């Protein structure tokens, strides 16, 4: 079932064009790397604020409203470009450890973010203006930072297997 899907994906027109072209893969990969640097760089600003390390004079809620739209836009670009890269050699990528581990960490980052939004962020009006943040916010920021560093490491690793 999954094998069928991966083979079908590789046989689609964009996938074939990417694997046969000498410049499409590097071009899309460049876009992918740019988008990821924007995702990770912008989320790091929020995470460091949650950890109480950086931008301590800025209210957390305000910072999140300003930065997260850039993160989500970049993330959408990263997902689209990543899907195109994946399609060009789907069965190979799916079989590698770093690819699977990267997807797992992305899911965990999503879970961490959902929990953060559903719990501690709800009371941001109470604590968001203080330079120091509650422990739950620190944990959320630390976990996010660790997971995204893991995502970048595993992503780079995919190119070496």
């Amino acid at each position, binding site marked *: 079932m999954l094998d069928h899907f991966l083979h079908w994906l590789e046989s689609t027109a964009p996938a074939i064009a990417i694997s046969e072209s000498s410049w499409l893969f590097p071009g899309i990969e*460049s876009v992918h790397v740019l988008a990821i640097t924007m995702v990770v760089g912008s989320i790091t600003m929020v995470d460091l604020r949650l950890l109480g390390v950086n931008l301590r004079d800025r209210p957390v809620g305000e910072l999140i409203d300003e930065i997260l739209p850039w993160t989500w836009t970049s993330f959408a670009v990263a997902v689209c470009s990543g899907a195109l890269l994946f399609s060009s050699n789907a069965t190979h990528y799916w079989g590698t450890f770093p690819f699977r581990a990267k997807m797992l960490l992305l899911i965990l980052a999503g879970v961490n973010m959902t929990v953060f939004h559903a719990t501690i962020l709800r009371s941001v009006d109470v604590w968001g203006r203080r330079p120091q943040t509650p422990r739950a916010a620190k944990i959320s920021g630390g976990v996010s930072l660790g997971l995204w560093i893991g995502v970048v490491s595993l992503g780079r690793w995919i190119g070496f297997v």
Partner: protein
Amino acid sequence: MLVDFINWLAATQASLIIQKVFWIIPTVQTAHILAISVVLASMAMFDLRLLGLAGKRHSIASFSRRFMPWLWGALVVLAASGSILIVGEPKRALGNVFFEAKMCMLATAIAVTLGFQAILKRDLGRGGSDLAPSHFAAAKVVGLVSLALWIAIAVAGRLIAYAG
């Protein structure tokens, strides 16, 4: 001459170690990419502020104080990790057209940034609380040029892997 240097570098003890230990290059590349994240995100915020597209409630001077230390800090990490990558694979980078283009653009981006910081510092030294209004138009050009340069630098960096 460049070939001699590449051959000499590739034969040094440091280069041989980097070539032999399989995890050094991927790990250092990862650190390099993470530092690029810091540069691109910081400079995107700052350049978008110069263009008037982000954070308009805050002064250019406050954005400068906030993001410039991250730029210089990350550039140190980039220079160090980049040097390790060159020592490990001298032939891959030196003489590579994308590497040369990247270094030229990097020098230009740093010069543009230092130039703008000098203007900002002078305006603040004259008792202003922010960049002088007469420099707002120039700031937009700087923001656009800087943003384009940093993006092109990152792209050229990735393309080093694809050109001999």
